[in-house]
């Protein structure tokens, strides 16, 4: 017993180290790939050594903020997805399926039209929209037991509804393509202001999630067990919902609605390291960052030299996985 626990923790450590290496390599790759070719070693070197060259300027003003946005958004979305899946005990729960992304997008686009653009106001609107979208889907899908199918269908309908309203706003204001581009989920235009906008929310949200990861594990066991263990269920639910809103709202505000990260990552993590949320949450953050950083590299390649929105890449990666889940979900019932 003791032995196997020790072996598990050492294998987790190994996994963490491997993931970290992949992550750092991804960062280097992300910094080096692009219209101007810079080697991975050089690009990592430029982070620490200042020599004022053109390459360094490209990295520090264009690529580094973008890479950091990828890290923050990927980690935030993945943790939000893991929390959602724990809370609803539904394998398909994720910011995209739950209408949270679409709600946040609608409110952000509406706010851009009504108010002059300011990064913080759009974050606040994103929170409100995320809350609205999530609440609608939750209300509809949870009546009479939330099955994956019902969640997916009501999420899809709410998503179509909200995104149609968003498109209507875009058309009525004749604000053009950049908004459409943003709506597919893109991080290639990111700058330091975006990093400053998302970083506090992302750090606080993930930090809180890690602090309460024990309660999240208990929540995943179901209502009766949790009550038996003396947990205040409603308090925890409200707290976790808030964390989810902070994480996904801030992500949408800076990067647009990027899909499938929150769905995909927690499943992979649980498969690799088990159900304990003390481990699932930090690993989800790391894997989410990895996924988005590599997806961003791919996004630069598929239509080279043009940039593509990273949301397209995550959708293409995520769909086969979603299909797999859908098939598995059938057997689970």
């Amino acid at each position, binding site marked *: 017993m003791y032995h196997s626990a020790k072996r598990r923790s050492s294998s987790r450590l190994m996994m963490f180290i491997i993931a970290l290496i992949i992550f750092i390599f991804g960062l280097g790759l992300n910094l080096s790939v692009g219209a101007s070719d810079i080697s991975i070693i050089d690009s990592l070197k430029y982070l620490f050594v200042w020599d004022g060259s053109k390459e360094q300027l490209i990295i520090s003003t264009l690529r580094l903020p973008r890479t950091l946005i990828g890290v923050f958004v990927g980690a935030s979305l993945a943790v939000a997805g893991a929390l959602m899946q724990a809370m609803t005990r539904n394998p398909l729960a994720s910011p995209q399926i739950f209408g949270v992304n679409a709600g946040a997008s609608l409110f952000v686009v509406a706010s851009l039209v009504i108010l002059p653009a300011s990064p913080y106001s759009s974050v606040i609107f994103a929170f409100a929209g995320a809350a609205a979208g999530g609440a609608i889907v939750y209300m509809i899908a949870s009546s009479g037991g939330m099955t994956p199918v019902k969640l997916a*269908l009501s999420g899809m309908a709410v998503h179509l509804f909200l995104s149609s309203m968003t498109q209507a706003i875009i058309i009525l204001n004749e604000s053009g393509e950049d908004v459409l581009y943003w709506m*597919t989920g893109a991080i290639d235009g990111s700058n330091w202001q975006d990093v400053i906008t998302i970083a506090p929310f992302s750090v606080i949200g993930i930090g809180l999630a890690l602090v309460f990861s024990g309660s999240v594990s208990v929540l995943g066991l179901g209502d009766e067990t949790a009550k038996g263990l003396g947990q205040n269920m409603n308090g925890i639910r409200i707290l976790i919902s808030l964390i989810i809103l902070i994480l996904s709202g801030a992500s949408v505000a800076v990067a647009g609605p990027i899909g499938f990260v929150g769905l995909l990552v927690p499943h992979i993590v649980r498969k690799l390291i088990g159900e304990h949320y003390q481990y699932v949450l930090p690993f989800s953050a790391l894997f989410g960052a990895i996924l988005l950083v590599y997806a961003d590299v791919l996004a630069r390649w598929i239509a080279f030299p043009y940039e593509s929105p990273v949301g397209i890449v995550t959708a293409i990666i995520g769909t086969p996985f979603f299909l797999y889940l859908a098939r598995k979900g059938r057997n689970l019932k």
Partner: protein
Amino acid sequence: MKKTTRKQKRPLLAILILAVILIVLSVISIGIGALYISPDAVVTNLLGLDHSFEFIIQQYRLPRIILAILAGAGLAAAGAILQGVIRNPLASPDVVGISKGSGLAAMAVILIFPESPVYVLPFSAFAGAAIIAVLLLMIARKKSIQPSSLALSGIALGAVCHAGMQYMMVKFPGDVNAALIWLTGSLWGRNWEEVKLLAPWLLILFPIVCILIPKLDLMSLGDELAQGLGENANRLRFILIFTAVALAGSCVAVVGSIGFIGLLAPHIARRLTGEKAKYLLPASALIGAIILLIADTLGRGIMPPVEIPAGILTAVIGAPYFLYLLKFEARKQ
């Protein structure tokens, strides 16, 4: 006997009323737009007694209205057939991703081969729809097409096609309006060209549907009964799905992937006429035509000269109804 007659629906009367509504709506719809034309002026113009608005009516409004009626009817009929064959109330070209597939194929042809003749369009759209349908049947396994796995797989395939369309939009940046036509579906700028494109397809397909109507009733009884009555259930299913895919594909080729019509029209029709295919199909087609006509008219009329794509309006109207259906179905179970 009397008890049943009181409850019995009057399908023929319902179809007649729907047809009258459609005609009245068409006349009103022709009048609405940047320049308002009163209904009696529309009628006198159409009858050739007056020529004052001939150019606007003949060249702009009439083809558009004909197209709305044809496409709405086609999409709704496709939905009714799919729901009958798959015996799943949620099956419809849009929910199962067929609309998105044909939208993607049509968009690809238009953007990548702008030189290609127009009549290629329906074929490519049909090919896209067929690919999605085949994938779907493969994933959902032929023997046990369960509602849940079918809907989930369809949502996933739809998502990947949507991502593909967004990629096209980014790769070939152009008019935002044109891009939205393919993403949401719209009748913007459609004229006799497109009517000529769609009409022959429907002229071939609608008679085929009429021949297939009695078979559809058989299929809804279940495979065993259909087989017992001397039908090859698998072949019949294939023919019916093929017809539905062709209907949906040819409509999407012309008006884009307009959502919710194929889903909602058969549901509303079923309430009015009951389950019998010989009433259900015509009623669905009429209701589909009415929905698309209303959506298009509203889109033109709300704030001219800006037009809201019809697909946005069908989603805004259709999604809440779909959610209501979901909730209602849940309560029944």
